[in-house]
């Protein structure tokens, strides 16, 4: 302990302490939430021993089951749609030099990242409420459409990053070896791009699964997703059941993120 520290240029006074404090502050509430989800007691206020009872209660709750199914359906559709169109857009806007209107495309694609979500939500409420009246359709399509659009920038960014890191000589070599442009895309570009596409799809999935505000405004009656269900529960007191659902969602997010890190690392 008494070892004298050598002068280290990367150390700044107090920085390490504040950083450690920041990590503690970031994780303490999450850990608390997770611990309380295993509370055996009947209230959030008292610890009644370890138990999985709130998970069982949540799992048997029909509203939770419905909301989970709806969340998953929307997230799967939204990630597939947004990843597909984002892949095409990334192929269109990357590695081909500057072209007219490229900046406009960038701005439109990244727009959901810049506009406050509440504004997007309100605008969709206005737009879709007219469409609902005009068409009579009030299914999950609106939520899927809204989520797909919102997820596009999240899918686009990792795919674009992957493409930019790819050498165009790969396609040149393919063309040299008798691959037509389509074959070159099918056998060289696409397989090399795949990690980026998978990463993009994962991020889009998480974003859709987590979305609260847009869903809250766009959903019709009886179309609660897991997050909006939880927000609705909050009108009453915070229940251990909500803690259990939160912990399950948290676990899913960590799992997907770990896979994401694994996928992006493996190919490089």
């Amino acid at each position, binding site marked *: 302990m008494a070892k004298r520290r050598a002068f280290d240029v*990367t150390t*700044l006074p107090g920085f390490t302490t504040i950083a450690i404090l920041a990590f503690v502050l970031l994780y303490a509430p999450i850990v608390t*939430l997770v611990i309380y989800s295993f509370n055996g007691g009947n209230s959030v206020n008292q610890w009644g021993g370890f138990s999985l009872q709130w998970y069982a209660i949540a799992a048997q709750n029909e509203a939770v089951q419905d909301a989970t199914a709806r969340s998953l359906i929307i997230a799967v559709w939204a990630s597939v749609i947004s990843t597909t*169109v984002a892949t095409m*857009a990334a192929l269109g806007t990357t590695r081909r*030099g500057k*072209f007219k209107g490229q900046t406009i495309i960038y701005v439109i694609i990244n727009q959901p990242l810049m506009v*406050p979500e509440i504004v997007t939500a*309100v605008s969709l409420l206005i737009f879709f409420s007219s469409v609902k009246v005009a068409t009579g359709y009030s299914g999950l399509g609106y939520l899927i459409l809204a989520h797909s659009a919102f997820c596009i920038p999240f899918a686009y960014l990792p795919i674009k990053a992957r493409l930019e890191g790819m050498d165009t000589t790969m396609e040149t070599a393919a063309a040299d070896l008798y691959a037509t442009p389509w074959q070159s895309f099918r056998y060289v570009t696409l397989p090399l791009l795949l990690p980026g596409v998978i990463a993009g799809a994962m991020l889009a999935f998480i974003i859709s699964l987590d979305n609260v505000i847009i869903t809250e405004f766009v959903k019709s009656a009886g179309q609660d997703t897991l997050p909006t269900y939880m927000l609705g529960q909050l009108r009453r007191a915070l229940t251990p059941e909500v803690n259990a659902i939160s912990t399950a969602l948290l676990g899913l997010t960590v799992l997907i993120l770990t896979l994401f*890190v694994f996928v992006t690392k493996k190919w490089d």
Partner: protein
Amino acid sequence: MSRQTPGRSKGLNGWLLSTPALILLLLAASGPLLIVAVYSVLEKGDYSGVRWILSGEGWFRVLFEKDIFDHTISLADANLSIFWRSFKLSIATTVITFAFGLPTAWFIATRPAKSRAFWLFLITIPFWTNLLIRTFAIMEVIRNQGILNTFLMHFGLISEPIQILYTDTAVLMGMTYVYLPLMVLPLYAAIDRFDFRLIEAGYDLYASRWQVLRGVILPIIKPGIIAGCILVFIPSLGAYVTPRVLGGGKNMMIGNFIELQFGQGQNWPLGAALSTVLLLVVLVSLLVYTRASSRDNPNG
């Protein structure tokens, strides 16, 4: 870079391939924003929605109110206090997240290559975790029977639980908590590119640690600082979930006020006008950001 594709076709292909994404976005993101602007100048409907009659009422009500009896015009104090609270809390959130974010980003960037990925991952988990869950988590901590009050009472620092939940402080704590990763990540990106030999040069030329921080480090990572501040300030200003959950309905911010107009308030033109104002503030912030970062970084 292959030069084989003639200029015109590469632009055409770029547009063609981007078209599906653009259609989706115009349909369900950018396009409806224009409708909001239109709705803000229409007349309020009887129950909800609008009547298609041009009216300045929505915009008027953003700042003013008219007495229903004597029709005198006065500033809408309630609205102003909501704007002020939103602005104040957003600025405070930005400052506090920066105070925590800079040391944290610095700490991560100066870890050895192997453990750096781990620390970065620790920041990424809260970043991608549901905002609602994180807000619940902070609620667990600060509610009257939560661990913070229990802890303080246990050590005899207080005798009664402090009411934090449903106050501005709660909203501020919540926003700081949920937006901290948004500050850390761009700062980290900037520090990661930073050439640490410059610090050696600074010390070599007799600078103190404080002088090195102010004179060398901060100016060089300025684009990252601006990016982090914008990334925290914009969502703070438009925050909806955190003030709703932690502010308990009384301590509204602009986001909740907008929602109110489409919910109980049933004044769509006012809600649309408020949304447009929020959008414009964000747009101006982004312009300032683009200007500032392009001036600092002519190559980027």
